[in-house]
């Protein structure tokens, strides 16, 4: 088990290094327009040259890359070109918002999707069709639009939840919870639809396996057969899909944070993109990829714990 975790960890680190290096190179390979964009169309050639020197853009890309990587491993992502604030500090102050959202969504998705998927697989018939409809609706409606509709219904028409804003859990736990209910609902819908489908088909597939018949022949209760043995067998493929969903959720969070005016990483990268603030964009991308790697590692470990065969791969 430990060597399995070590191997996964090494793979994750490699991914992190390759992904952030590639992003850095892509964003820095063509720096000719950056100074102009920061200064505006009226800038003179001297002003542009001065700005480029100030940002270090006149140095060769390899040199800047080594410097960036060297800083990144120490948690130093440089400073924002516009606010001159430390990128690390900005990113870390925004992280709790996005984490509340994304981790909340993953948990909600895991619970609801498992319940729906198992219900659809064991009951079939009408329940199954209801789940299928939910999954099509969930896949069809973009989550930020779901967010808008939720605001119109549950914040403007029926003032149950706040329409916008984030309350830090340190300030008020209840306020924190009610500030993330609608965003998490909006984000969960598409993830629930995808994962519940996977749980449903995996559950049906596992239930038809030979060993399930043999377990039943041993006189095990139906509850134990379905919820211990079959569900555990169906968990591996479902977790794989959940991991894939997580990557998409980070992207979804960017837009949903805008809808609910949550000061998270998504809001940060969206405004940094508009301005062309390369260090800040890079910082957010690096931290997002780190999140993906960490979540994948956690899901891999859970998978390995559930499925002894997975530890071998």
């Amino acid at each position: 088990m430990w060597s399995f975790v070590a191997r996964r960890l090494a793979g994750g680190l490699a991914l992190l290094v390759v992904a952030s290096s590639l992003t850095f190179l892509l964003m820095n390979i063509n720096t000719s327009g950056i100074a102009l964009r920061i200064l505006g169309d009226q800038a003179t050639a001297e002003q542009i040259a001065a700005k480029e020197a100030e940002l270090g853009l006149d140095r060769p890309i390899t040199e800047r890359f080594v410097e960036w990587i060297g800083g990144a491993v120490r948690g130093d992502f440089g400073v924002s070109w516009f606010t001159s604030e430390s990128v690390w500090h900005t990113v870390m102050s925004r992280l709790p918002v996005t984490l509340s959202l994304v981790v909340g969504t993953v948990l909600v998705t895991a619970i609801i999707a498992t319940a729906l998927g198992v219900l659809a697989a064991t009951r079939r018939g009408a329940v199954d069709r209801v789940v299928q409809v939910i999954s099509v609706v969930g896949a069809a409606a973009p989550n930020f639009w779901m967010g808008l509709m939720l605001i119109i219904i549950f914040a403007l028409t029926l003032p149950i939840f706040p329409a916008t804003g984030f309350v830090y859990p340190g300030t008020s736990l209840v306020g924190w919870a009610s500030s993330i209910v609608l965003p998490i609902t909006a984000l969960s819908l598409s993830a629930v639809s995808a994962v519940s489908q996977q749980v449903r088909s995996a559950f049906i597939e596992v239930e038809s396996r030979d060993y399930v018949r043999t377990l039943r022949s041993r006189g095990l209760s139906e509850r134990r057969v379905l919820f211990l043995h079959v569900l555990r067998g169906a968990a591996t493929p479902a977790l794989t899909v959940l991991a894939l969903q997580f990557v998409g959720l980070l992207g979804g969070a960017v837009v949903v944070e805008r809808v609910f005016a949550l000061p998270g990483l998504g809001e940060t990268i969206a405004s940094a993109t508009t301005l062309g603030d390369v260090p800040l964009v890079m910082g957010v991308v690096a931290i997002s990829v780190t999140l993906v790697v960490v979540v994948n590692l956690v899901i891999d470990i859970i998978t390995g714990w559930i499925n002894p065969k997975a530890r071998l791969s």
Partner: protein
Amino acid sequence: MSTETAAAALTPSAPAPRSLTRRLLHNPLGILAIGTIGTIILLSVLAPLIAPHDPTYVDLSIAFDPPSAQHLLGADSAGRDVLSRLLYGGRFTLLGALISLSVAILVGLVSGLVAGFYGGWFDTLSDLSSSLLMAMPSMMLLLAFRVVVGPSLWITMAIFGVLISPSVFRLVRSGVRQVRGELYVDAARVSGLSDTRIIARHVLSVVRAPIIIQGAVIGGISIAIQSGLEFLGLGDQSVPTWGLMLSEGFRNLYIGPLLTVWPGLAIALTIGSLVLFGNALRDALEDRPTAPRLRADVARAERTEVRPVGEDIALSVQGLTVGYPISESSVKTVIEDVSFDLRRGQILGLVGESGSGKTQTAWSILGLLPRGAITQSGAILHQGVDLIADREAQRALLGRKLAYVPQEPMSNLDPLFTIGHQLTFPLRKHLGLTSEEARRRALALLDRVGIKNPERTMSAYPHEISGGMAQRVLIAGAVSCDPDIIVADEPTTALDVTVQAEILDLLRELQAERGLSMVLVTHNFGVVADLCDAVAVMQNGRIVEQGEAHSLLRDPQHPYTQSLLASTLDSTDPRAVADQKHGTPMEATR
């Protein structure tokens, strides 16, 4: 999103294209989805002809006007006609999705074909890159790219096409690998067909439908991503799209909430139809027969006259008929009027070729027929109780008095639990043992069935032991709670010949030692001669001949028994011979 499900669609063999289309058009949801997509595309293409107004014509005097005869969906914040903007918006939104889709399919298809067909370094490299791309949050990357390349909708969608191409790549690559291993591709290669011709003819036909399914998914995702970017105000402000309309509506959410509803609905309708279309196509591809529900009057079992039997009969099967529904009013019968008595302490062989109904009979006794099976008539008598009429009594016997030894040892142990767990749980449940007692007893059982290192086997997972050991474990499990009756379904078929004899010896010893009554399903008359006291021969779901083993073997009456017996004496596997002769009509329901 659903790479997994689309990949699963690869498994069935390549379907004939025409029948696939026909099956797709048989599905009302499929028709609905295709109709909706067609209508949306048509409306978007014809927008210049049918739009009532210029989508960019500003008339501030009617800003935020509600729907009217002049402006069917009202006017937006700048007094532009919402309906016209919606129609024109469709053009650009769909065009953007089309760009992503084309790029994704082009990149994924070409790289997948090359990687899957030729393998080598390109395969390794492209597989690594696809894992890399799949682990990257594409929204973040698109934002990063936007800093470099600017806000153009077309470039952004092309980049997104590349980012999402791994889903196509994976599909194509695994499809190609599957096909490459097929004999007909080798044959085509030997007969001198060029690689391009082979790819075009054999490979593309296999991956086409899964790609269309994945394409529908990609189309949906790219519309969602595109509108998300525009919603953030990071889209291309120069082209009117649904996302831009949403973004404008959002800014005026408190004045005109309806302005977010129309473009949102247009997006949801488009993506929803794409999803439904993908689902319908996948269903058609898998040709999943929706299990017919029998009408109540057909499903009702006939009352069976139960014939009382003596104390010496452990189990009496009487007039058993089982079938599977093929439509709401008809049932395909797989075993018909099967009757036999299992004497206490004896072994009864149930013999026949694959598909003769032996296994269905065995499962009926255990009450473990697959979902959908219907017991049309018959009785299974155990100590005066009809187990078909009293399912609860049957369930109460399972694992305690009635046990099962399956055919395929490796697939009959739960791969996720240790052998020890699977052995001890029934002991604790049925015999009320503590976990320590259960463990000692399980160790003793493993030792009894001839496992060399019981301690190590207890903590092993099923994939860590051999097939012969797995079958010993399963036999230990079957006898663990001291049953009276064992149903063994071809317990040696899946094993090596040398191991077969050992397992048969073990079964015989245990049977003698514990006075077990046993139904032994087999296709092998050698096993019957070796072990059985009585024998019943099955063909096409019926018992054609039964009697004492030694007399039946010496003097078979029925021609089918004679031919089966003759083929055994020729030392040929009777199953192989029979399969060649008759095919396997009921293999599907086994």
